[in-house]
């Protein structure tokens, strides 16, 4: 019932792109040209025009996506076409260039285009792979739900630590306060636990995966002979374990959502750069004609 943008309408745009490539290759192979293959032949101009128009149209997806009331196809259809026709550019642009590359603005436009397409490939892969992982990771809960669960555990931990003495209280309170999630782009994508904790006799130390604080509680548990205190400590160790798992999931959630977005920060600026280089390429070709 649901269709991804890859299988959209039986992969309609895949076939269109395939046809476009096949015709381009066919013409390239079949035609006996009076001069070496390249942008200057009639086939070169034709492929160049198709390629340039495609690039402009592909860039226009950013506008179409924001045309919320538009009735011109669905955004899913546009995405599907964007992916397949964008991919076909590799063939079309290469044939347009006739495999002539050099250290010039023309090749710069070509390289930029390839970079845009490559970043797009990562996007496609991310869109196909991550949604399922995202849902499985959080079990269908929202990130806010997970944060609420953490806050609930925090409250319980602080309450339980209160009667266990100042050192324990400081340690638990600091482990809660100095829990670290996210941060800059790198930190979000790395999803490592940079939390810290104040431990008795050690001061502020790393609290990776909440293990040091858990170790502290477990050690206290092994030393206490007080029954009630043991019960509290046991409960606390369970809570810290549950809390660590929740934090792990939140970090993973931040990471995946980051991965689903970060490629666009390359894809879009590169696309603009590509359009600019394309413009220079076209103008310079006509100036030096």
């Amino acid at each position, binding site marked *: *019932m*649901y*269709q*991804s*943008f890859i299988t*959209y309408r039986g992969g309609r745009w895949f076939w269109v792109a395939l046809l476009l490539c096949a015709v381009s290759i066919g013409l390239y192979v079949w035609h006996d040209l009076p001069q070496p293959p390249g942008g200057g032949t009639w086939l070169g101009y034709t492929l160049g025009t198709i390629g340039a128009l495609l690039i402009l149209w592909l860039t226009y997806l950013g*506008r179409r*996506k*924001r045309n*919320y*009331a*538009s*009735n011109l196809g*669905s*955004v*899913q259809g*546009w*995405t599907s076409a964007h992916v397949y026709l964008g991919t076909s550019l590799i063939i079309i642009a290469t044939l347009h260039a006739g495999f002539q590359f050099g250290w010039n603005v023309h090749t710069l436009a070509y390289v930029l285009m390839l970079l845009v397409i490559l970043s797009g490939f990562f996007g496609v892969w*991310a*869109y196909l792979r*991550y*949604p*399922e992982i*995202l*849902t499985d990771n959080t*079990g*269908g*809960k*929202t*990130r*806010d739900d997970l944060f609420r669960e953490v806050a*609930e555990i925090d*409250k*319980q931990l602080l*309450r339980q630590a209160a009667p266990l003495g100042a050192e324990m209280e400081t340690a638990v309170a600091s482990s809660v306060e100095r829990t670290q999630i996210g941060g800059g782009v790198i930190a979000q994508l790395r999803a490592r636990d940079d939390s810290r904790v104040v431990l008795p006799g050690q001061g502020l130390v790393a609290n990776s995966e909440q293990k040091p604080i858990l170790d502290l509680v477990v050690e206290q548990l092994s030393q206490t002979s007080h029954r009630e205190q043991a019960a509290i400590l046991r409960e606390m160790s369970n809570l810290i374990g549950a809390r660590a798992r929740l934090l792990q999931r939140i970090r993973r959630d931040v990471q995946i*959502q980051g991965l*689903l977005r970060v490629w666009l920060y390359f894809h879009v600026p590169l696309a603009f750069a590509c359009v600019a280089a394309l413009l220079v390429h076209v103008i310079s070709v006509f100036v030096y004609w």
Partner: protein
Amino acid sequence: MSDKIKIAVVGSGPGGISAAAHAAELGVPHVLLEATPKHSDTIQKYQKGKHVMAEPNVLPLRSPVPFEQGTREAILDAWEHSLSQHQVNVRYQARVQAITGSKGDFTLTLANGEQVAAEHVILGIGVQGNPRKLGVDGDEAPFIQYQLDDPDEFKGETIVVVGAGDAAIENVLALARNNQVHIVNRRDEFARAKEGNLAAISSAISGGEVQCFYSTNVVRVDEGDFDGKPGRIVLATPSGEAEVAVDRIICRLGAIPQRDLVESFGIEFPNADPNALPVLSTRYESNVEGMYVIGALGGYPLIKQAMNQGYEVVEYILGNSIKPADHPLLEAKFEVLPYALEVDEVLELLQERIPIFSQVNPLVFRELMLDSNVVVPEPGEVIFTKNDYTNTFFTILDGSVEIEVSEDLVIESGQGNFFGEMSLLSGRRRSATVRAGPFCVLIETPRRTMNKLVNSVDAVKRVLDETFILRTIQQRFAPGVPLEELRPIAKAAKMNQFRPGEVIFEEGDKADALHLIRSGSVTVAKTFDNREIPMAYVAAGNYVGEMGLLGNSDRSATVRATVKTESISLDSATFLDLLQKSPELLERMRDDVKLRTQQNVRLQADASAGDMLSFLMQQGLGEATDVLLIDKELCVGCDNCEVACAETHHGTSRLNRSAGAVFAHIHVPTSCRHCEDPHCMKDCPPDAIKRSPGGEVFIQDNCIGCGNCEQNCPYGVIQMSYRPPKKPGIWSWLLFGAGPGPGQAYDKGEVPRGPDEQKKAVKCDMCKDLAGGPACVRACPTGAALRLSPEAFVDLVSSR
């Protein structure tokens, strides 16, 4: 006892003020009795600065007291001023507890024991009801209150809240921030609370922020000095008596319905239905001669209506026969009629010609006509089309119509008959196409008005129900058989009601009846390994239980209501009668059975499909007609759906993508499912919520912002929101940085707001005004968002 006065007005709401001011301006001896220390208690309780609308706009105001839309404060000030300007004899804190006597000699007994004698009584006490008191010794103590306006007003106090409903819980949670709060719950759990409140109070109690006394009753309240506090509450807890010294006690025990009080005055209601209204004459006089009922209590919830009635009632009491303020409205309405008759004559003619309305009291009928439309269609014109979602009710005043149920069932219906009751009662699509015949004149009555009538006039309900059964049996089982022959079968049919989750019949039971689902929906489930696995979803308009009846055997599956469901059941004897009358029915039913069996087999192979179906039903989708479902395997969380919704709907998204439950990668986000029988429509004072032919439930511009629909929606899909100004176009944003860009909202405080602007209810309208359909679905780049009707659920669950 004081001297007898001409008119005693009970309740100083808009109607009461208007009546008393008019009496004062005419120099009629009167008194206005108000239970609380201020007039217009209900409106006083509106939140600060609330904008009050003056719907219906077409109705002129007829009152010495001014009223136009504006803030709560402006309106209350104007009324206050009016009360003193007209020197109205108003008595505050004069709660009327009893009224005895008869016209010309009524005695009103006040709470303080004082008595007032009056010739006529006007009741304008609204429907809010008085807060239920503790009912123990000391419950008049000054530190007991029944309302909490601003929880931040109190700090550092010890407060006991009595009650276990949502109001009590919300108060407790708000107060607990700055005070020591106890909550007294008569039961051992918070059974009546909404889920969110339940979770919040449970965590506050387990977290020690709030102390709860479960299974506890209040014994008494003492005044005096208790540890420096002004009072003490004594409680009977399961472990003995407990005492708490308090600064304040807040009782949230709900309200005593006005009906009990009103009935004690001798006023009769037509039936026990909680929505029933007292029977009134065209002059708003109740069955107790000399006692008049105006405003919300009489079924008129809008301020302007109540004020007009206040004025009119005083005129009637003085023996003046004035035309009601709505007279010109009706006159305009009847202009299209091909008769040269006065308004009152037309009304009489209508009641005479249309039997279903003949029993209705003239005042109610007048109101009904105010809401209704007179339609004079050209011959052959389509009134409504089969499968439309409209739900108005039609009566035929003149001429005839042709009702085409199917190709082989076309019925002609003439003067005095009605049609459209099927959709009205079931909330389902139209079951026939109706075309106008020659000289046809129709009355089209909105669904809400009709429902009000059905609730208050038993005769109308009975006729509608009987006709519904008869016509349904004809349509579904015996298209070729004339209605007259089917009448005995319809008589033997039974109407049944089921609560959500209730079993209609169980696997293994003896098959004794067939159920035709009239409203709601059911699931059909089988038991495998001691687990009940639903295999099919059956919507209203279809039948269940025919398999057992045809095979004359035991039930092969359990059928359960998914939501509140009504069915019409035929027992086996009646069913056999029907089979004799309509022999081809057997053939058709066998085909149906075959189809159903195939479907069952398809789903049986896969227990997870059943689990998915149960999940969807748990989300309340059994009453949906169209719902947004997201496939989590495709959703990248870009929120383009929400943005598209906001951008196409004045800046407010009507769906919350991330909220809502998920099961096996199917996500039910918070968004409108366009219920069969929409909860939001239940109590809309200006009747602003409508259903379009395509099924979209939407809110019109005449919303008054009361928030009833927001509260009534069990799925939280209605919000109250301002309408931001139009955004500049994309190019002026891109090139000149003007306004927020596409998909961005105005910052808070950035938007200048006029004094007249107010929040109105907003909800999904399924983009009924956009050519391409729902923007959320069309804006999804990955195809994760789909809108489905429940009929597609079986395909959905079996395709996974």
